[in-house]
């Protein structure tokens, strides 16, 4: 039972981390990226390269990954998305753009690192005895890092000037730019933060999952599901939604059927959406 809860918390916090990225992007630019899962994968590969191949300390590797992933996300928005919209493309074409980006990322990773599963060395190589159940420290690390980044993001958005600017820009672009806020900048930063969060999730998942090109595909989709259930565009909603999905999955697999796990997990999400039309956290779902 406890392992079940820990597993659910770990999986849930990963969904939450990646899911917050969807929320950020949507809040800032009203768009949707389908490449979040692949950002996670790239982050994992980069982390592995720094930590395992170049023997950098873990904290430094994580920091480097954050910087690189932030830049990648920021460039993606600044270079591709913005110019696409500037060319008069309808917003939906951004979806196609991110589908293509997702394929590019997967294939680039395949040629850069190979298509086999790689081992990410353990970060904390010991187990902890929690109420009679052994738990790998790395799994708890996922949870800890997940919570840490959620808190960091919370402070960044609420307490810093730039965070406030981002929130303002998200609420009303025109008013915000009238007040001297650099709105395009806030959009770029939002995309950057989103891909950074996914990258962090990739690095901390590496030791538990191994690193391979397809690792992000399903996580990306489920994180999206979690974010939507929680209340899209609401940071805290994404976390709660992610955790909710993590629990539903783990308990469905245990109590109902592991084979039909996804069937029931998504079925429950649909029911929740219908009966809690605002998401778990308030956000307009219906009109």
């Amino acid at each position: 039972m406890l392992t079940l809860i820990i597993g659910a918390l770990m999986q849930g916090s990963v969904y939450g981390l990646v899911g917050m990225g969807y929320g950020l992007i949507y809040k800032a630019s009203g768009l949707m990226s389908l490449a979040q899962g692949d950002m996670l994968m790239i982050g994992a590969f980069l982390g592995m390269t720094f930590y395992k191949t170049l023997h950098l300390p873990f904290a430094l590797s994580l920091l480097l990954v954050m910087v690189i992933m932030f830049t990648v996300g920021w460039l993606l928005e600044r270079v591709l998305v913005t110019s696409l919209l500037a060319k008069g493309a309808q917003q939906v074409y951004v979806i196609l753009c991110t589908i293509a980006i997702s394929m590019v990322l997967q294939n680039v990773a395949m040629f850069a690192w190979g298509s086999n599963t790689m081992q990410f060395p353990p970060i904390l190589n010991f187990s902890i005895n929690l109420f009679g159940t052994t738990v790998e420290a790395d799994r708890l690390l996922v949870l800890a890092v997940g919570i840490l980044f959620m808190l960091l993001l919370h402070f960044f958005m609420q307490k810093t000037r730039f965070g406030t600017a981002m929130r303002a820009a998200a609420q009303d672009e025109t008013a915000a730019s009238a007040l001297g806020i650099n709105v395009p900048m806030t959009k770029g930063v939002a995309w950057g933060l989103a891909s950074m969060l996914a990258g962090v999730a990739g690095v901390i998942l590496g030791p538990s999952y191994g690193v391979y090109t397809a690792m992000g595909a399903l996580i990306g989709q489920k994180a999206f599901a979690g974010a939507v259930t929680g209340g899209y565009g609401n940071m805290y909603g994404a976390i709660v939604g992610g955790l909710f999905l993590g629990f539903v999955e783990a308990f469905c697999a245990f109590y109902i059927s592991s084979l039909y796990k996804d069937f029931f997990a998504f079925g429950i999400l649909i029911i929740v959406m219908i009966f809690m039309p605002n998401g778990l956290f308030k956000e307009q779902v219906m009109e």
Partner: protein
Amino acid sequence: MNQNTVLTQQKGAAFWKKNRLSIIAIAVLCVAAAVMLRTRYLAMILDFICIYTIAVTGLDLLFGYTGQVSFGQAGFYAIGAYTSALLSKNLGVPPILSIFIGALLATVFGVIIAFPASKLVKHFLSLLTIAFGLMVYTFVNSCSALTGGPSGITGIPKVSIFGLELGSYQSYFWLVAILMVLVLITKKNIINSRVGRAFIAVRENPHAAAGMGINVAKYKIMAFAISAFAAGLAGALYAHMIRFISPDTFTKDQSNMFMTMLLFGGIATMSGSVIGAAAITVMTELLQQFAAYQTLIYAVLILIVLFLLPNGTVGLFSKLKAAVRKRGQKRKPGKEGTPQ
């Protein structure tokens, strides 16, 4: 009598002048199809283009015209395919009938999905359709007793019409081509009808549409039903063409492919779905020679096209058309100044 002939001739000439491009195009098309049908491989590609066009046309009505996104079309595609395969193989229903039963069952599911979907907006709708696609996939992959599970279904009967068996890709082409044309004509009629205008109104501004007395939910459900029918029809046609189905065909990649085809071709146009389906199908075949690099090249090509033609390939053709018209108008005025 004589006068009549002259009149017909004049009429004919006018018709020719007005439609000469279409006539030439159709002629070229027929010749091209005839040539292509001589080899099985090219015939197969044509079959696939027609099948994909049917599914993408449905998606266009839903997404392009009504503005309801769907990332779960593979679910309807699967329902059509599995229903028709199972009915014809296990219960001996003639395939030509089971294909339509499959499409109808997909429509039923479309309506069921549409009830909650018609109330949802934006990302919640995306999620609902993604969830639907995933649920159908999980079901066909897991319920081995009914669907054969991951091993799929082999030996799906061939289609025969009036005792004529459509076993080869060449003969099958006529069936899928006729159905594709029917679907396209239906689409055109829908668009030009009250329903089509309601669809567009819903897409443009659901609140305004409701204010004008349009039953928004009803039209959304209708659009879902139509797109589900088209996807189900395409799926059933696919099942009887390949005569083997397994869950691998009905993943989210298939849904994304339909979406890519539609966006690549251009949304809310008559030709977009055809162009998109054909271009993507031909492109993936051409890229085969790049072996492991093909997906990368495919993705980069899509990005390039996206940047050159931000609104799908149809954007290019409307630009071209405008350019041709401009040139034509510059040249023509002296001879015949009739405005279009």
